[in-house]
């Protein structure tokens, strides 16, 4: 096999290179030539092509994502902001947490089990890289229609993969989402969130500083994984036979990752690294160029020292490989022996593959010859930036005009119709119990899980002594975003924020995963621009900064994009997890209150979707000031011990919220719908900014006074009582019947 060295490249300027097959545009290729002052070697071309891909360079989204920084609310909580592997948030008492959500959509469609498993593995390494111990995961998921044959292939595999990897790592799964919609049929969304904890002083950064320091690659050996997504390699023109077609499917090994986590934490505790980076997308290309570019500026790597699983790999392939469970650390020479000793103790393969330099160049050597010699910033941080054209699509007005009014979509009105509608909704795949999924996840491991699914937010204890804890929720509503991406993104944030507050935690910071169709479609790009603008504006108003996230484009089948789906994760802090508020009703006789205002808002609602297959009109109104007040009430109510239960009102409206509170506790409720409101609207409207709470009689006045003082509407809607949800003057359904309806759906579909 001929190796395309720098010297050879300089001498053969006219060689035709397969840049287009590698996904580079002609002008991008020309820019690489201009940067280098010659044609790139095949290894350099491989590096630039993966690092300048949409996935790694954020070239289409960058100009929009900037708003998260520019509009960031003032806060002292942010210890590390956007730009690192994950943001770090101060939660007090010397503790910090880091959290982030990422997508693994396409791989999970191709090979559901491994795609989802490696998605979990990747986000966990991002959290570990910050110096934190990963402590919990969550999994926001979207699939095609629940009864579609391909969903029966994808969903069980994805769930088994997330469980298979997360359970084996010993990370409790504390929440997530399972949503079904037509548009996700060929494009399931598999997003994974991880949260980790650390002490303030333990933060690690991805930078290679200090010339002479060693670059250590450790963890799994490098194989051909993840290469060949485009099936043509940079080296093709240089090797007559062409490289063997490499597998693009990455296979995860959670056992290796678990050992890697413990090994890393021991290394961190002994203070043995200057900088550290996980190997994720773009593998070594990414890790070396990012480390060098953020540090002293240069690095020398001897590529043939990389331990290989497959000895036939070419240098280009080694640079591009996305083999899982690998890390790259920068270590002072004096500490290297101790570093390697700890790796040995955990049976982790560790190899010194290079050293930090101050040359400003990333130089990669292969069997004594230089195959890469580039300024690392141009690879890692100075990739192309696109201002993609975007435009509000023509049909948007018609869509919004098609409101689900009573004369357009018939509504149930008699008690019998309302009862039947309720049972139908409860059993609908989007609202039905997700136990079939979540019972495959370990929620107990590590012994700090205070709340987990189906609670509004997952909550873990951070400090056993003081009871300090964090709560997390993720939300996203593609239908709302389709109707109005600006408001839809804000609604997603508001819902996650409300969920965290409902658990009793004070919302502090935000992560997001922006799942969209092709950025080359101006209509999709408009959705993206509107969603990011809406999210950034809302974060500013709610006072919660975005700390990091991920963008996933090209989620589309042919011309049809998925519903625009920004998934928003909110993290909150609670001083004592003992004060958490669960969602299930407390003792009989307690008062049930509805906080917030109900309007006739059924655009994009679950009712319109389930009963009429309809999507049109406007999503519910966003009132961020109200959301903030509501959160204050929920947090204060928890802190002062006024609440025995709280549950936010969202998909499926008040009806679904009450059903879920009954199911969670096994207790019924007698409910009086407020006067002067249409019973159907009262039960099924999806107005935002609302929550149902249960309070002991003795606290009722204190609680309602608190609401009144903040000008937040509150109405007494019933009492916890009996074993049925009894909507006075309308209908009654026993908790047992509700449970049967809710729990039968997923097992019937997935076995």
């Amino acid at each position, binding site marked *: 096999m001929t190796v395309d060295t720098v010297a050879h490249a300089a001498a053969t300027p006219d060689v035709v290179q397969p840049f287009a097959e590698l996904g580079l545009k002609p002008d991008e290729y020309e820019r690489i030539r201009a940067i280098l002052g010659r044609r790139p070697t095949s290894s350099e071309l491989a590096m630039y092509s993966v690092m300048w891909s949409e996935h790694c360079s954020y070239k289409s989204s960058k100009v929009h994502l900037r708003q998260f920084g520019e509009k960031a609310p003032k806060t002292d909580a942010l210890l590390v902001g956007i730009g690192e592997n994950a943001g770090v948030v101060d939660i007090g008492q010397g503790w910090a947490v880091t959290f982030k959500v990422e997508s693994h959509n396409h791989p999970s469609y*191709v*090979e559901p089990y*491994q795609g989802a498993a490696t998605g979990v593995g990747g986000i966990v390494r991002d959290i570990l890289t910050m110096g934190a111990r990963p402590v919990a995961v969550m999994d926001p998921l979207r699939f095609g229609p629940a009864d579609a044959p391909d969903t029966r292939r994808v969903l069980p595999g994805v769930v088994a993969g997330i469980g298979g990897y997360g359970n084996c790592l010993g990370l409790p799964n504390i929440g997530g989402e399972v949503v079904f919609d037509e548009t996700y049929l060929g494009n399931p969304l598999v997003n994974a969130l991880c949260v980790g904890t650390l002490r303030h002083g333990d933060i690690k950064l991805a930078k290679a500083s200090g010339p002479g320091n060693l670059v250590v690659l450790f963890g*799994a050996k490098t*194989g*051909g*994984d993840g290469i060949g997504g485009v099936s043509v390699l940079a080296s093709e023109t240089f090797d007559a036979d062409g490289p*063997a077609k*490499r*597998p693009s*499917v*990455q*296979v995860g*090994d959670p*056992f*290796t990752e678990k050992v890697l986590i413990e090994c890393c934490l021991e290394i961190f505790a002994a203070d043995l690294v200057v900088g550290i980076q996980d190997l994720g997308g773009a593998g070594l290309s990414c890790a070396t160029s990012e480390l060098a570019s953020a540090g002293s500026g240069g690095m020398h790597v001897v590529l043939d020292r990389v331990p290989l*699983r*497959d000895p036939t790999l070419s240098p280009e392939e080694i640079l591009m490989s996305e*083999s*899982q469970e690998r890390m790259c650390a920068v270590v002072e020479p004096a500490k290297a022996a101790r570093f390697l000793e700890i790796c040995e103790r955990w*049976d982790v393969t560790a190899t010194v593959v290079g050293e930090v330099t101050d040359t400003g160049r990333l130089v990669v050597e292969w069997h004594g010859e230089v195959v890469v010699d580039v300024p690392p910033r141009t690879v890692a941080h100075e990739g192309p930036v696109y201002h993609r054209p975007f435009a509000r699509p023509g049909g948007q007005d018609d869509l919004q005009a098609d409101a689900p009014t009573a004369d357009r979509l018939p509504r149930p009105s008699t008690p019998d119709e309302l009862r039947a509608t309720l049972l139908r909704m409860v059993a609908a795949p989007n609202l039905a119990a997700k136990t079939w999924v979540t019972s495959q996840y370990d929620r107990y491991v590590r012994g700090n899980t205070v709340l987990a699914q189906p609670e509004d937010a997952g909550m873990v204890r951070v400090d056993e002594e003081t009871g300090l804890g964090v709560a997390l929720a993720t939300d996203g509503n593609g239908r709302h975003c389709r109707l109005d991406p600006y408001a839809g993104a804000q609604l997603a944030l508001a819902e996650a924020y409300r969920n965290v507050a409902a658990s009793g935690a004070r919302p502090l910071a935000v992560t997001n995963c922006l799942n969209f169709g092709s950025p080359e479609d101006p209509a999709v790009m408009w959705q993206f621009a509107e969603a990011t603008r809406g999210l950034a504006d809302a974060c500013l108003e709610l006072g919660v900064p975005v700390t990091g996230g991920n963008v996933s484009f090209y989620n589309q089948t042919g011309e049809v994009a998925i519903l625009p789906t920004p998934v928003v994760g909110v993290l909150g802090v609670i001083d004592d997890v003992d004060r958490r508020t669960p969602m299930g009703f407390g003792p009989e006789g307690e008062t049930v209150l509805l906080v917030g205002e109900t309007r006739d808002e059924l655009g994009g609602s679950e009712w319109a979707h389930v009963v009429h297959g309809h999507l049109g009109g406007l999503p519910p109104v966003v009132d961020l000031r109200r959301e903030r007040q509501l959160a204050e009430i929920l947090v204060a109510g928890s802190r002062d011990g006024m609440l025995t239960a709280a549950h936010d009102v969202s998909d499926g409206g008040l009806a679904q919220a009450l059903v879920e509170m009954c199911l969670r506790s096994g207790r019924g409720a007698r409910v009086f719908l407020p006067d002067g409101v249409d019973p159907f609207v009262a039960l099924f409207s999806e107005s935002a900014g609302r929550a149902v709470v249960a309070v002991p009689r003795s606290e009722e006045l204190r609680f309602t006074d608190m609401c009144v003082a903040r000008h937040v509407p509150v109405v007494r809607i019933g009492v916890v009582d009996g074993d049925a949800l009894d909507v006075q003057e309308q209908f009654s359904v026993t908790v047992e019947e509700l449970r049967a309806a809710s729990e039968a759906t997923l097992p019937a579909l997935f076995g």
Partner: protein
Amino acid sequence: MARVVVDVMLKPEILDPQGQAVQGALARLGFGGVTSVRQGKRFEIDVAGPADDDLAARAEQMAGTLLANLVIEDFTVRVEP
């Protein structure tokens, strides 16, 4: 009555963590000289009727559609009387 035996193995280039774990364990147990271990699945399927070409064809189909995940696995099929 005929028997179909289907062996399903991960493609050679795909990571096999199970095989690796077994290889490590064999080494620790003192079995020297083991250079590679791959772990796969074996299906023994009993089918009514003769062990003929038709069965072989059906067996091939069973393996290709259900027993093996062709994204990451290869299979071989044998029909025995």
